């Protein structure tokens, strides 16, 4: 069946095109009028790790919501700039015209069944707009103490389990959309895998937007008990529609002693004018392990803060990501490999490609805190520009505050300007084949 033509959507409000540069950008005037040469200098980067700066400090959910609401009301829509060569601006988001509830009663979006692979699963929770439209959990797992429900229900039914972890390492007021998420989320997802429970089939957490005009607030909290093993698949999916929509997301995953999690995430917001501003954090406890694979396959404007923190000795992680942008899409990824203590191991490997007139920026940070001795980690990013007007920035960086470690990074950006494009957007073909895992 031929694919529907994609609507022409204006480029997100950025000045990246004006810079006219590729793979690192051109020189541009800094705030004081001085010519700033981009890249190669820590001061040229903007983002910083959360590094444990969570809002959850024993206050109630209502108190955290109130703090977030105050921030939401006082802040403007954010603009993130790296000096001279990169801007991600939400100025064109018409937040006031978006609503949290759809016109009709929410139902399971067709894109969910069309996209998710038909295969055994441990459980599934689907949030469409801001309502849960599908929730299922293997009865045997429920019997063994596994919990999968909306975060709202989890606060009501398991407050002692949820409250100590909620927003433990996530802030609620760094910018307007983070504050909006913390203030307005109403459904969300909660997964708890008890100690020593091993689950081979994946848990699926789905956020879907199937109509324009929606402001979706996604909030996921996952607790992996001591020596548990499980797989978590998150899908962020949008139909092809005309008009604006927003997904402001926050995901926190806590892996206790010896827990092991394989966390995969597919994000594809379709051809609509979907803005996605999200923060995801995984906390790897003592002797725990996380393999995290984000696949960021597009959205009108996507900004992702992805932080993988080893917080206890013996933690180990593999952070393998990929991104693909096309047409006029704008992607801004900040991936953090944080080691708060040692010994610990890390391996960050990202690959990406951009085509059309899309813009993609990947900043990867290795941060090794004081005392995190015997940390060994490596970060690499390889990306390609598949059209003459595409642009990719790759900014690997290292902040090391311990002296018995090995940490290194590397990045490549290349172009493939004469390749003949194949029919249809490749990412949509991949998605519609029924999954990437």
């Amino acid at each position, binding site marked *: 069946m031929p694919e529907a033509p994609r609507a022409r959507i204006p480029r997100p409000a950025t000045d990246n095109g004006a810079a006219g540069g590729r793979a690192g950008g051109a020189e541009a005037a800094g705030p004081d009028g001085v010519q700033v040469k981009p890249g190669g200098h820590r001061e040229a980067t903007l983002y910083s790790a959360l590094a444990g700066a969570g809002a959850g400090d024993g206050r109630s959910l209502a108190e955290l919501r109130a703090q977030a609401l105050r921030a939401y009301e006082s802040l403007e829509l954010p603009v993130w700039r790296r000096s001279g060569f990169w801007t991600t601006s939400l100025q064109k988001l018409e937040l006031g015209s978006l609503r949290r509830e759809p016109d009709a009663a929410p139902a399971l979006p067709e894109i969910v069944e069309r996209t998710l692979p038909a295969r055994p699963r441990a459980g599934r929770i689907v949030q469409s707009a801001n309502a849960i439209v599908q929730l299922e959990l293997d009865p045997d797992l429920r019997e063994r103490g596994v919990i999968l429900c909306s975060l709202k229900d989890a606060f009501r039914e398991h407050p*002692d*389990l949820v409250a*100590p*972890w909620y927003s*433990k390492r996530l802030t609620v007021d760094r910018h307007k959309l983070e504050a909006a998420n913390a203030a307005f989320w109403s459904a969300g997802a909660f997964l708890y895998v*008890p*100690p*020593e429970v*091993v689950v081979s089939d994946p848990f699926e957490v789905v956020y879907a937007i199937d109509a324009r005009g929606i402001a979706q607030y996604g909030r996921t909290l996952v*607790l992996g*008990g*001591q*020596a548990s*093993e499980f797989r978590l698949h998150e899908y962020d999916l949008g139909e092809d529609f005309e008009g604006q929509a927003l997904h402001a997301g926050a995901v926190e995953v806590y892996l*206790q*002693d*010896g827990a*092991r999690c394989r966390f995969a995430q597919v994000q594809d917001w379709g051809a609509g004018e979907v803005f996605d501003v999200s923060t995801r954090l995984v906390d790897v*406890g*003592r*002797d*725990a*392990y996380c393999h995290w694979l984000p696949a960021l396959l597009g959205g009108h404007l996507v900004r992702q803060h992805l932080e993988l923190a080893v917080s206890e*000795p*013996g933690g*180990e992680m593999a952070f393998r990501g990929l991104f693909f942008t096309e047409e006029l899409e704008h992607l801004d990824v900040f991936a953090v490999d944080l080691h708060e203590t040692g*010994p610990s*191991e890390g391996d960050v490997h990202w690959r990406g490609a951009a085509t059309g007139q899309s813009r993609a920026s990947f900043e990867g940070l290795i941060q090794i805190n004081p005392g995190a001795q*015997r940390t*060994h980690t490596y970060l690499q990013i390889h990306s390609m520009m598949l059209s003459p007007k595409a642009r990719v920035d790759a900014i690997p960086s290292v902040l090391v505050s311990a002296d018995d470690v090995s940490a290194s990074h590397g990045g490549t950006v290349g172009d493939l300007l004469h390749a003949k494009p194949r029919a249809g957007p490749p990412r949509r073909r991949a998605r519609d084949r029924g999954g990437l895992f």
Partner: protein
Amino acid sequence: MADLEIRDLHVCTDGHEILRGVDLSVSRGQIHALSGKSTLASTLMGHPAYEITQGSISFMGEDITSAEPHERAKAGLFLAFQYPVAIPGVSVANFLRMAINAKREEPIGVKEFRAQLAHAVDLLDVDRSFTSRHLNDGFSGGEKKRAEILQMAMLLPDVAVLDETDSGLDIDALRTVAEGVQRLHDEQGLGVLIITHYQRILHHVKPDFVHILLDGRIVLEGGVEVVERLEREGYDRIRQEFGAGEAGAVAAGDPGA
């Protein structure tokens, strides 16, 4: 007298008393599981950061309380590290040959070493290419622990102390490591002291004796029935029963974990 005798052991580190009178006996052919501190493993091998303030350790009838780590290893005591160190540039095979030679008067012959290595590799179901890689350099958690068990199989100690060897392993790697330990015990009469925080390794290795260490003392001892009780009642119950302040396991949902 047991091969490894620990009597009234008191140990301090950083000014804190961690062990407060531990008594434990391990002989060849026995498997002991101890839930508690890695401090005991470090002390047994003579880590300089751990000061013995009272008590004694004897091995094969000799007092080794003050012996150097290499003397303990030469005597036949082996420690599998919780966090093995990477040694780039030294292959697993070369490391093993050097370790074996350190215990012998004459260097081991190439043919004999190869035969011994092939036997150990088969016994532990390890890929042969594993031995040509640099020791622990770029190894996954599971590979590091397999390398420790491979060393154990090659050095043929009388008693091995496994310091949280099960940590950082997925269920398949745990099974492989545990089966290797069990085989070395069954086929070579190895004595084993498994120090662990988790119960799951005890589903694969069958201990003859189980000891629970709380607040620096062994508060509960017995056979596999202790493991069954732990699984039934959890550590919290035992902690309450003995009025201890800490345990080998952390309750789920504890934000301070």
